[in-house]
Every structure is written in C-alpha cells, then in structure tokens.
C-alpha cells in the first residue's frame, strides 16, 4: 500500500481521475544499463520505458559516460543534424541524466527500475532485470546478437523462401518483444504492492513468442517444413500481396482468380495443395501480376479472403485507417507511430509523450 499511496499522491489523483494526464502518471521509472550492455538488452529496456512514458509515467534514462550508445545508431534522420531515428523513437518524452554523480539510484525515488544484469538492484524499488539468457543458464555465456537469438529461438527456421536461406525479422523484434515482456513484468510488479524482482531473458521472450516451434513435434503432419511457402508474397503489378488464406477460404480464392484448373483434385485439400505448391503458384501468379495490390485487396476482402497488400512505410503515411485513428503523430523528430492502443476512445496521455523530444545529457 505504501508504494501505491506515493504514486497516487504524486499523480494528484482524485477519485474520478480529474487532472491526471495518463494512466501511469505519478509513477517514476528509471532505466539504467551499463555502457557495455548488449544492444538487444539496451533496446529492450528502452522499449519498456517508452511504453511507460507514453502512458504518462515519469521515465528517467541514466546515460553512461559518453551518452547512450543508441544515440549513435542508424537509421538516421535526413535533417541537418542527422539524429538517430532509433534513439528518437525510443526516448521521446523521457528525461536523461548522466550516470556519473549518482551515488544511489534509490535517491531518485523510483517506483520501478529497468536495468541490465550488471546494475546493482535497488533497495526499495521493484526491478526488472533484462539479460540475453537470464540468470539460470550457466552454460550460455557466449556473445549473442538479435540474429543469433532468432537462430536459437527457431524464428529463423520458420522464415525463408522454400528450401532457401532463412531471413530475419526486420528492425529489432527480439529486443522489442523482450521490451513488451519487461513492461508487463514491471506493471505486474507495481500491482503486487510490494517490491518484486523480475528477470527478462531476450531469448526466453522470443521463445515464448515462437512457442509453436516446440509444440510442433507433438503434431501430426503436415510438418512445418512443408508449410513454408503456403502463405507467401506474390508479385502484383505495383508491388506484392501476401497470399494468406485458410482451408475455408479456398473456394472463395478459386472464385477470385477464376481459373477452373484450381478445381482439380490435386488442389482439393490443404495437404494436396502443399504437395503441389509449385504448380499451384504457377496458376495463381499471372492473375496477381496483372493487378494492382490495392485492387486485389479490395476484391479479396469483398469475398472475406484474408490476404493483404505489402504496404511500404511510404504507403502507410497516407493510410486511411491510420489517419482515421490518429495513429501517426507529427513530432519535432518527424512522423512517429503513437502507442497502439485507444484508452477509452483516445490515445493515452493525448499522445503528448510521443510529441516530445528527449533532453540530452548536456541539456539536463
């Protein structure tokens, strides 16, 4: 109750929440990672802190000497100062302070800290400790990267073209998935109303995401190796379309494409289609290649087929759904996605945190 009362007092909370800017207003969170912490650990911590910040928490980043290494990482913005878009995305709305001069991080009055395994646990605040493998893997001490974590978790095994080279998920998905887990661990810890310590392993978070890989050996055929390519990107006249469908959608897909050869027995069941995948795609490709991806999307959706166009980031900047829902914010740093939730019909904190830019070490 003690910690909760402190947060409520800071928020100036009233029974009806009047004057509260965000659901986590009044909650103080500190992020701290050693300069030598692996990039995926640092990114996971930053993502968890970003979500808290977007919900109105006061988030302070303790930057190592020389500044947060993320400040120097691509992609860079195209303006004159070429700031790191990665840093700007993750840290808008947070405070930054230098690590030197801090003798005791509890002095900052945090409710929760997000730290890497080299940082000392606080005496009072709840902690979420992010690491590559977690504290209970004595045999795993080798260096790792997002790519090798994707290899160990089986994610790479699932993403490839037929029988070809595996491909990674784009961006920083292992780190960000771990960041989502870290945010949940932190908020659950705050609900516990006592000091908690949670461990987030980036490998475990991605294994949790890819849980079907270990469920797979329990399943009957068709095996996963053969299902690679069942859903795939198909060229349209102006880009690509993701051909996604379930068994129940097959008759509608035949109607959409209108090729009577698709009614042949060799395509009649899912298993038959997997066994004759090359022949199936040879029949489907010409229809897609002759049409624009937006037209294909419209025609497919009219038949409730769940395929979708492969939109580029440029396409999304003028996407009607995103505009209608006020998902993209114009910030001093550029166009940025807001937190992907509507909270009682509005973006939390009115999207204020998204619009702000972090102060630098020197600014603070």
């Amino acid at each position, binding site marked *: 109750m003690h910690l909760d009362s402190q947060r409520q007092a800071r928020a100036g909370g009233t029974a009806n929440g009047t004057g509260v800017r965000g659901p986590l207003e009044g909650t103080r969170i500190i992020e701290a990672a050693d300069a030598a912490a692996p990039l995926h650990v640092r990114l996971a911590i930053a993502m968890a802190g970003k979500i808290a910040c977007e919900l109105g928490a006061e988030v302070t980043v303790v930057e190592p000497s020389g500044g947060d290494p993320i400040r120097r990482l691509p*992609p860079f913005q*195209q303006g004159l100062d070429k700031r790191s878009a990665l840093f700007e995305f993750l840290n808008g709305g947070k405070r930054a302070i230098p690590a030197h001069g801090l003798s005791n991080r509890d002095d900052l009055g945090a409710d929760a800290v997000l730290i890497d395994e080299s940082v000392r646990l606080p005496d009072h605040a709840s902690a979420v400790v992010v690491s590559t493998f977690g504290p209970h893997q004595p045999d795993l001490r080798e260096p790792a990267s997002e790519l090798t974590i994707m290899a160990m978790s089986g994610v790479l095994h699932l993403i490839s073209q037929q029988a070809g080279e595996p491909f990674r998920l784009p961006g920083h998905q292992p780190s960000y998935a771990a960041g989502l887990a870290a945010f949940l661990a932190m908020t659950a810890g705050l609900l516990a109303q006592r000091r908690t310590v*949670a*461990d987030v392993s980036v490998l475990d978070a991605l294994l949790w995401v890819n849980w079907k*890989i270990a469920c*797979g050996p329990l399943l009957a055929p068709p095996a996963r190796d053969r299902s690679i390519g069942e859903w795939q990107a198909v060229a349209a006249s102006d880009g690509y379309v993701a051909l996604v469908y379930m068994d129940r959608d097959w008759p509608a897909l035949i109607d959409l494409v209108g090729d009577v050869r698709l009614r042949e027995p060799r395509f009649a069941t899912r298993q038959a289609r997997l066994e004759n995948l090359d022949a199936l795609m040879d029949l489907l490709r010409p229809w897609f290649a002759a049409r624009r991806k937006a037209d294909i999307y419209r025609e497919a959706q009219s038949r409730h087929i*769940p395929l979708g166009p492969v939109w580029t980031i440029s396409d999304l900047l003028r996407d009607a759904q995103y505009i209608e829902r006020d998902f993209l914010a114009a910030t001093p740093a550029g166009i940025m996605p807001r937190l992907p939730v509507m909270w009682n019909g509005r973006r939390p904190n009115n999207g204020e945190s998204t619009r702000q830019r972090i102060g630098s070490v020197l600014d603070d």
Partner: protein
Amino acid sequence: MTDLALPLKNIRVLDLGIITAGAATSALLADLGADVIKVEAPNYIDPFRVWVDFEKKDDWWNSSPYFNFTNRNKRSLCLDLKQTAGRDIFLRLVALSDVLVENFRRGVMDRLGLGVDALRAANPKLIVAAISSQGETGPERDVSSFGSTLEATSGMAHLAGPVDGPPVLTGRDLNYPDQVVALFAAGMIAAALLSRRRTGAGVHLDISQRELTSFLLGEQFLSDGAMPSREGNADRCTAFQMIARAADGTWIALSSATADRSVDERALRRTIAELPADQALARLKADGFACSAVLDGEDIRRAPWFAHSNAFASTSDGQSTKGFPFQFRETPMRVLRPTPALGQDTASVLGELLNLSESELASLASDGVIGDRPVG
C-alpha cells in the same frame, strides 16, 4: 505467505479470447495469478481446437496441442451467449469480474448484446480489452486478416526478406503479430488495473494488432526522406552479420558488433561451407563472432539449455506446455492447472459465483445453454 501472492491474485478475468491473440493474453493474466474463466459455447468453440489435422477421437475437441499449450492455468465455462438465459448469466458474471478479454471479429460482441456499453452497464469498473486486427474504428475495422496479413499491411513484410527478392512472411507457424499482441495487451491490462486502483473507473482498451506491428518498426517511420527497404540479413546497427550454410547443410547465423565492415564475406562463406556445423561454430567463436546454428523444434527440445528456459513448462501431469516470457524471483509463476476440458468447470463456476443450484444447472443443460461438448 499472502505477502508473496502472485500480482493478480484476486483479479477475475472473463476470457472470450480465441486462437492466439486473445487467448494468450488471458493466459498471461492467469500465469500472473488471476482467476481466468475461459468462456466458450456448445455451438461456438475456440477455433484453435480444430486448427490441427488429426484423427478425431471421441473427445477430439480437447486434443489440440495448440489449444492446450495456450489455455493452461484457466477454468472452462461452456455457455451459449446467443441464448437470452446464457447472456443474462454472462452479464451476472461480468458484474463480479475485473477484466474481460475478447478478440472476435468486430461487431460480434454487439450482436450478442455484449457491446462495451452493455458490459459497463453491468460493471462500471470493468476493464474491457478488445483486441482486433485493425481496431474498433476506421474504414478497415471489418476487414478479414490473420497475423501474416498484418505483417503485410503494417510495413513489416516489406522490410523482411532478400534485398533483391520478394518479401517473406512468418507464416501460420509463427504469425508474429498474433504473438506479440498478447504481451502488449496483457501489459495494457496491467496498466489499466493500476489506473483503476487510483481512479476507481473501468477502462475500454481498443488494441489494434496492425498498429502494434507498425509500432514495433517505429524508427523506420522516423527516418523520413530515406524510405527503408529490405536489408536481407544485414543490420545497419551491427558491424557485420550473415547466415551461411555449413557442409552438413546446417544454416549458421553469425554477427559481430566490432568486426571491420571489410570482412571478406565470400571467403567466410566458403570456409563455413567446407566445415561441418560444429567445427564451423567453434571456429567462428574462436574468431570472436556471436554465432548459432539455426535451430528447429527438435533441436530446441534437445538443447541443454531447454530445461532451464522459462519459455516452456510442464503441467502437473508431466505434459510439455507453454511457459512464461519472464519470471519473478520471489514468487515464480507456475503452470498449476492443466488445460481444462470443454466445460469442465461450468458447474463449479456457476455454483460458486452465482449460487446456481444443481436443478438450475440441469435445466440449463437440458436447454442447451450450458454443455461439455460441441454441438452443430
């Protein structure tokens, strides 16, 4: 011991979640100590129960590994929400609950008479987590999609795959957007519970899986003027990385945060191609690379670290099941309940929470309002 209860002890969740996105969200809440009541109907079961091709035995609806991995630690209530009596019972349960999770197609809850207004009329303090492909509003709110559709429409697929080839999808064995949304939605529900503690008010969470997938590419939106494209397996944040095939056919992923960008990639590929995977990995480690074989499901289950991973767990009867994306030190999460059979807890839930008598339960069963097997 009460001081060491899991964080969501005393929180009750009505789980209308299906397949992964909703059902995995509720499973996380159950892992955190909530009493999660999964609600299905005799005439509408979770499609995950029938996602797998297997021989249909007498109780086939309780046999899907996908379903059983996702729904452990819950109780099962089988109640027909399309019947007035079923909906009335459900709304009485809403009045006694803290959270409702649903990921039906938009409009289904309204057609059941269970739209947000009806739910909040029954319980103003309820947290309603509505998880959907596109969100509750907007011109595309009703479009049909699966996780991999959202990879395409979120911008993710455009950035995945070879530089000079077509995009790649994670496919139905991963369906990435369906997985990560459960982590995000559970986090939003926990934040809403914190907010409710202060304000006393319920919250309607409208969570779009497509938006989340774009959000997880946020920095790409900010690099305006230089619209990003596929990088293959390279990563501009990492000095050098690639995937190469060893002599025994094993794919090996390797990267270096410090290697000079002038590493001779072709020569390295040739070296790896001439060695079996174990020797190639040893060589790469000695040369300072982070590296791993690309593991499949069997490899993972055989790995010495598998037994120590939190991501997988065992049920009390020794069955392998889904574990946890993180773990608490003082009060570890556990799989305390195996996945219940359909309707296994109907009588106990309705008796315990609503004081329904045996004769009332029998009457509901004869009317098909409750049940323990699919019909129709």
